[in-house]
């Protein structure tokens, strides 16, 4: 039977294409820890970078002390860091009763502020926007690009005039042997801030971190975040589907095997639960309990089992009349064994085919929940999934439609995977039995 299923499936070009996409996505997500840097690794450059960008591969804080080992120096004899020596200053701009109030980095009130070219507005959640050069006056009306009445506090980040320094660090076996700044020897420990490093050369070769899909506002690599988010989405999809299968198969098998009044009551139960808007109950559940992975598996699994139970019940109902069940019963097998050993294995085919369509449905629900901010939490911290990445990407659009990749990448990853899973599920269903296809619709 498996052979015919596959030969039918193979003829459906869309389904085979979908299967290929699913295999690639699953492989990438499973291998994510080995092929992408850890998603939480902060790059020193605050501010989103577009896809295909490169940054010097340094850390947030780079310490070099004579005679001590540093990770950066591993495997090279000389490091050269080009550093901009200026400093960033944050100015707090707030609306107070409709008039602008400016405070300097030392929290003192300022009367006016000259905004140079290249200044950056930092909004809530670290979302950045471009500032408009010119003169700001305290006490007057605030320009729209700076403060918006709905969010009355913004920060302006101004870079002071910069000089370029060239730090050169000689290394021996990964240990620092000499430090020079613009050719002048330095004999004490130095700390170079990553965001000031303009270029890093190791033995004369540029050493860059490459961001295939760019970075987000906090400098995190988006390729890596998307893969790790996909891991969570797929994990929830698979495990919750497995949970729904367990519930559905058991419920359906018991209803179908016992028949009679038990069956009638259990079918009525399915019909009642069918009309319950589970997703709203899940929202309520997520607000009532802490949102651990286990609760997600259970809650989303409990949403999806009704159709599985229907399919299993119908199958078991027809199978239970078979001779092999009669034989098992007359051999004295208890009902429990008959169900698990003889009936359930016989209806697994259609059940697994339907499960292929349950996986995308569960992923969609998980993304929905994490999009509205009710995603999985671990130790009080929300975990990334495709839904929350899309939500953050939407926040990244700001009011100008910049940083499109933050929305496009997770949205495409999620939509592509959902579409591929749906194609596979549809293909399997059509290959198994066209009649079943109509029943499950």
């Amino acid at each position, binding site marked *: 039977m498996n052979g015919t299923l596959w030969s039918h499936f193979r003829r459906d070009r869309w389904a085979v294409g979908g299967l290929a996409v699913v295999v690639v996505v699953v492989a990438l997500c499973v291998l994510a820890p080995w092929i992408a840097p850890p998603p939480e690794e902060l790059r020193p450059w605050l501010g989103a970078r577009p896809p295909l960008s490169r940054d010097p591969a340094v850390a947030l804080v780079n310490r070099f002390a004579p005679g001590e080992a540093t990770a950066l120096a591993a495997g090279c004899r000389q490091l050269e860091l080009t550093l901009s020596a200026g400093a960033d200053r944050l100015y707090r701009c707030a609306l107070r009763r409709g008039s602008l109030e400016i405070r300097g980095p030392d929290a003192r009130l300022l009367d006016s502020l000259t905004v140079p070219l290249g200044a950056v507005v930092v909004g809530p959640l670290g979302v950045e926007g471009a500032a408009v050069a010119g003169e700001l006056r305290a006490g007057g009306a605030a320009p729209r690009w700076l403060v918006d009445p709905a969010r009355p506090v913004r920060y302006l980040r101004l870079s002071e005039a910069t000089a370029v320094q060239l730090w050169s660090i000689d290394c021996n076996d990964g240990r620092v042997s000499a430090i020079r700044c613009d050719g002048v020897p330095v004999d004490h420990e130095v700390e170079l801030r990553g965001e000031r490093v303009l270029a890093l050369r190791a033995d004369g070769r540029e050493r860059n971190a490459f961001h295939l899909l760019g970075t987000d506002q906090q400098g995190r690599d988006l390729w890596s975040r998307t893969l790790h988010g996909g891991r969570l989405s797929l994990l929830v999809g698979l495990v919750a589907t497995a949970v729904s299968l367990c519930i559905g198969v058991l419920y359906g098998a018991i209803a179908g095997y016992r028949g009679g009044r038990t069956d009638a009551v259990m079918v009525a139960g399915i019909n009642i639960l069918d009309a319950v808007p589970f997703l709203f109950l899940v929202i309520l*559940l997520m607000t*009532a309990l802490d949102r651990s992975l286990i609760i997600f598996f259970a809650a989303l699994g409990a949403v999806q089992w009704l159709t599985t139970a229907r399919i299993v019940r119908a199958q078991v109902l027809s199978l239970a009349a078979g001779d092999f069940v009669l034989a098992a019963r007359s051999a004295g097998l208890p009902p429990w064994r008959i169900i698990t050993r003889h009936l359930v294995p016989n209806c697994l085919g259609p059940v697994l085919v339907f499960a292929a369509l349950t996986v995308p449905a569960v992923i969609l629900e998980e993304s929905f929940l994490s999009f509205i901010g009710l995603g999985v939490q671990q130790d009080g911290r929300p975990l990334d999934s495709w839904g929350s990445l899309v939500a953050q*990407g939407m926040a990244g659009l700001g009011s100008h439609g910049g940083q499109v990749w933050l*929305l496009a990448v997770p949205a495409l990853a999620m939509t592509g995977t959902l579409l591929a899973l749906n194609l596979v599920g549809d293909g399997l269903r059509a290959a198994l039995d066209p009649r079943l296809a109509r029943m499950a619709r």
Partner: protein
Amino acid sequence: MNHLLRRLVYAPLVLLVIALATFAMVRSAKGGPFDAERAIDPTVQAAQAKRMGFDRPLPEQFVRTMAGVADGSLPTLSPGQTVGRVIAGKAATTALLGGCALILAVLTGIALALAGAARPSSWVDRLTGSSAMAAVAVPAFVIGPVLVLVFGLWLPWLPAAGWGTWAHLILPVVALATAPAARIARLARSTLAESANADHVRTARAKGVGSWRVLAVHQLRPALVPVAAYLGTASAYLLTGSVVIEQVFQVPGLGSEMIQAAMNRDHNLVMALTLLFGSLIIVCNLLADVAVMAIDPRARRA
């Protein structure tokens, strides 16, 4: 008739299940909004519990809570507000959004199915078929931000967010209607394909009825049956969709109220909204059954 009767019998049971489930969840909730950092004096705690009615037996609490939801007098977290007043103030917005989306979805879905069925296997048919297949998989919370980006920010033709004028209505309604429109197009298209070779269609063609007339008069009616049956599911989709769409477009409706309430752990309000949405879905399912019977005489006899 039987089917509708069964639904009518089930409706109160469904509502009871939802009510019990919501009540159980709210009562088992960990961490309320009034959780204080330091320990509260037990007498104060007892007084608080008495005021909230937590010292009564559970069944009594359940009945009281549900009565409070039913007449809208249950208090929310905001002082002086009741769930009834919050819902009454925002229901019209969500109803307008959902209603427009439903109408748009049905009209475009059927139009796409007819356009495809008019010339089977033509490029129109393939295009509508494959785009409907793709659109079913795209969640509303992806379509919404993409529409904002394209029509709100890149081409500033429509307001990207907010509420108040007719222009504000367009993007959220389109975002909400896309998936159900695609589903309706697929349902109607497959029934149109089945009936293309039916006897009555062939007879009509043989009598010289024009192809559009055959399609719109003789084939469309049976194709509407699965569409009408789908409307119950569609209403559930539109309600859940409105939760995200209202957040994306910053529409002040019940959906965004639901998220707000969930974030604030305003359990009473979430419970009331869940019950309201649940009853709406039950009603829509009933209406869908009535619509099926109105279209299909066979369903009336069954």
